[in-house]
C-alpha cells in the first residue's frame, strides 16, 4: 500500500459516514405482479457508490462507510436519523415518500445534507424550500416533460389519458397535463381506471371498449405501481402506442442505458448486486457520489464546506448521462437527461433536439426558476 500513496502523502486521512435510510412502501395488491421491484432498490446503488468512492479514496486516504437501515415505519427511520445526527453524521440519503422526506427536513439540523433519492413528488421541488434538501431522483415534472417533448417531436399530439386510482397516479397525470400544456399537446379524452376485474383474463375484451374514442395518436397511462397499465398495450381500440408509466416510459435509469460509459456502470452494478440497476439505485448512487465528489475536491468532511461546494459552479458529477450533472440553485434538483425506454431498448433521451433554454437545455425538463416558490429561501 505504501507504493499507492507516493506524493499523495500530502492528503490527510478523512473518514466519511453516509446514512442511507429506506422506507418500505406497501403498494397494495396489484394485478401485474409478475416482475416486482427489488426490495433493495436504492440500497444497492448506494453500496456501489461507496465501493466506487473507496477506490478513489484509497489514493487520497479517504474512507467512505454506509450506515443503512430499511423499515416500513417512518418513525423508526426518523429516530435512527436523529441518533446518527447526534453521533456526527451529516450526510443522509433518503429513499422514502414525500411525507417522510418532509419529516426529515423538519427534524434534522440545518447543517445536515439531505438527498431525496426516492420521491418524485413535484411538491417537494416547488414548495419545500430547505436549502439543505437536494433531489437526485427526477421529479415527475421532469419525467413527464421528457415524455411530452418526445411526443411533440414525433408529432403525436392527440392524447387519450388513463389514470389509475392512487394519489401517486393522479399526481403523475397532473404532472403530464402540465407538460402537455407546456409543449402544446392536446388531451382528447381523460378516463379513470377503477375496475376491479382480473384483467389478465379479460383485457382483450375490456380494454378496447374502455379506450373507444373517435381519434387519438397515443394512449397515456398513469399507473405508477403497475396495476393495470401493462394490459393496455396492444389492447387499445385504435392501434396506437402506449406511453407513461407503461409502454414507452421516462426514467432516471434503466438497464438499456449503455451510452457514455454507462455500460461500465451497468456491469459493475450487475457484478455487485446480481441484478439490473434501476432508477432508485441510480438516484442513491448519484447522491453518495455527490458527497464523495465534494469530499475529494474540498479535502474535508465538513458538511458546511461541502454544501458550499455542491452548490457552487465548480461542482460537476460524472453521471454516465453524456454531460456533467449539477444541482439547480432554486430547488436543489439534480439536472439530468431522461432516458425514454421500453423494457428491451432505449428509444430516445430528452431533452429533445430543438427544445431550447436561455441558460441550460436540461432546464427544459422540470420546474424552471420562475416555477418554484423557493428561489429566495435557498439563496
Amino acid at each position, binding site marked *: 500500500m505504501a507504493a499507492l500513496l507516493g506524493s499523495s502523502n500530502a492528503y490527510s486521512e478523512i473518514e466519511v459516514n453516509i446514512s442511507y435510510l429506506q422506507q418500505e412502501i406497501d403498494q397494495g395488491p396489484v394485478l401485474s405482479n409478475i416482475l416486482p421491484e427489488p426490495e433493495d432498490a436504492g440500497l444497492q446503488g448506494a453500496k456501489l457508490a461507496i465501493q466506487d468512492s473507496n477506490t478513489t479514496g484509497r489514493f487520497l486516504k479517504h474512507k467512505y462507510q454506509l450506515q443503512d437501515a430499511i423499515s416500513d415505519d417512518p418513525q423508526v427511520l426518523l429516530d435512527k436519523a436523529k441518533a446518527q445526527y447526534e453521533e456526527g453524521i451529516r450526510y443522509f440519503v433518503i429513499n422514502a415518500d414525500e411525507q417522510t422526506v418532509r419529516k426529515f427536513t423538519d427534524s434534522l439540523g440545518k447543517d445536515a445534507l439531505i438527498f431525496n433519492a426516492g420521491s418524485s413528488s413535484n411538491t417537494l421541488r416547488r414548495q419545500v424550500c430547505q436549502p439543505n434538501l437536494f433531489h437526485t431522483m427526477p421529479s415527475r415534472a421532469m419525467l413527464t416533460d421528457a415524455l411530452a417533448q418526445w411526443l411533440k417531436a414525433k408529432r403525436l399530439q392527440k392524447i387519450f389519458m388513463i389514470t389509475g386510482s392512487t394519489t401517486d397516479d393522479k399526481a403523475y397525470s397532473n404532472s403530464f397535463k402540465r407538460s402537455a400544456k407546456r409543449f402544446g399537446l392536446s388531451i382528447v379524452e381523460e378516463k379513470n381506471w377503477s375496475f376491479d376485474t382480473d384483467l389478465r383474463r379479460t383485457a382483450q375484451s375490456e380494454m378496447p371498449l374502455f379506450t373507444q374514442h373517435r381519434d387519438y395518436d397515443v394512449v397515456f397511462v398513469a399507473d405508477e405501481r403497475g396495476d393495470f397499465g401493462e394490459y393496455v398495450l396492444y389492447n387499445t381500440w385504435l392501434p396506437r402506442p402506449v406511453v407513461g408509466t407503461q409502454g414507452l416510459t421516462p426514467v432516471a435509469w434503466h438497464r438499456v442505458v449503455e451510452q457514455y460509459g454507462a455500460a461500465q456502470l451497468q456491469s459493475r452494478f450487475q457484478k455487485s448486486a446480481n441484478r439490473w440497476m434501476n432508477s432508485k439505485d441510480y438516484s442513491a448512487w448519484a447522491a453518495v457520489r455527490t458527497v464523495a465528489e465534494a469530499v475529494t475536491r474540498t479535502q474535508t468532511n465538513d458538511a458546511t464546506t461541502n454544501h458550499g461546494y455542491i452548490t457552487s459552479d465548480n461542482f*460537476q*458529477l460524472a453521471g454516465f448521462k453524456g454531460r456533467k450533472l449539477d444541482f439547480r440553485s432554486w430547488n436543489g434538483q439534480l439536472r439530468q437527461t431522461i432516458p425514454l425506454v421500453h423494457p428491451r431498448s432505449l428509444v430516445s433521451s430528452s431533452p429533445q433536439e430543438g427544445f431550447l433554454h436561455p441558460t441550460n437545455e436540461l432546464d427544459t425538463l422540470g420546474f424552471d426558476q420562475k416555477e418554484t416558490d423557493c428561489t429566495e429561501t435557498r439563496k
Partner: protein
Amino acid sequence: MNFKRTLTALAVGSLLASSALYAETAYVSNEKDDTISIIDLDTMTVTDTIDVGERPRGIILSKDNSKLYICASDSDTVQVMDLATNQIIKELPSGEDPEQFALHPNNRHLYISNEDDALVTIVDTETSEVLAQIDVGVEPEGMAVSPDGTMAVNTSETTNMVHWIDTVKHELIDNTLVDQRPRHVEFSKDSKVLWASAEIGATVSVIDTTSRKIIKKITFEIKGVHRDKVQPVGVKLSDDGRYAFVALGPANHVAVVNAKTYEVEDYILVGRRVWHMEFNQDQSLLLATNGISGDVSVIDVSKMKAIKSIKVGRYPWGVAIKP
C-alpha cells in the same frame, strides 16, 4: 505504338512508385461490428474488413509495424494480428475488459487498462506472461508509456485521476487529481509533459511529469455548440512540437491547440462523436474516428481541414497507421 507502350509503362511505373511512396495502411477498430477496417491511404478506400474478437477498442502497432495489437474488450483478451497475412496469430492474457493500452519502447511490455476491474495489467508480448497487475482507480481508461520508457500513466474515469507507474518496479508511485472523466493521455516527445483529456470536465490538463502537477488547463469554446457537448477524448501531439489535436466527442470538432502557448487556434469540423486520432508517417494527414457517423475523417494538417470521410463499420473507435 512504341510510344504508347512507353507511356503505359511510364504510367504503371509512376503508379507503382507512388504507391510505394504513399502506400500507408490505416487500421480502424469497429466497436459494434467486431471488425477491423483496413484503409489504403493512397486511394483512401477500405480494402478489407477483418473479423476480430468482441468489442474491439484500443489498437496499436508493434514498434516494427509487423503486428497490430487489438483490445477485444468483451472477449477479455488482447489479440495479435500479423500484418503480413492479416491473421490473428496470438491472444495475450489481458485481464478483464481491456480497453486501452500502450507499448513500452522496448517493444515487449504492453500496459493494459482493465476497465471493469480497476487494474492495469502488464504483459510481456513475447512470452505472454503477466508481469504485474497494479490497482488503480475505478474504470481505468487512458494508457501511455513515456517515450524515454521510465514511466507509464493510466487515467481512471470515475476516480478522476492520472496514476503514475514506475516501469522498472511496476509499482504505482503517484496520483494526480484531474477533472471529471479523464479519457486519454499523451506524452510529449521529450517525456517532459503529459496531456490528459477530461471528457465531462471539458478540459485538457497539461501536467509536468517531474512534479506531476498540472501546469495548464485548456478549455474549449465552439460557436454554436453548447458547452456541455464539448467533451475532449483523443489527444495527438505533432512531432514538431507545434500542435496538439484534441478530439471533442459530440461537439463533432477537432481542436487545434498551439502546443507551446496552449492557445486553441482552430476547430476542424469532422463527423459525429469524434473519438481517437492518428497521424500518417510524415504527419501530413490526421485520421479521426467518428463513432456515430460510422466513418473516419481525413484531416489535411497543412490546411487544417477535413478533406475526406471514409465509411467504415459501426462505432469506429481506435485507429493505427502503418507506414
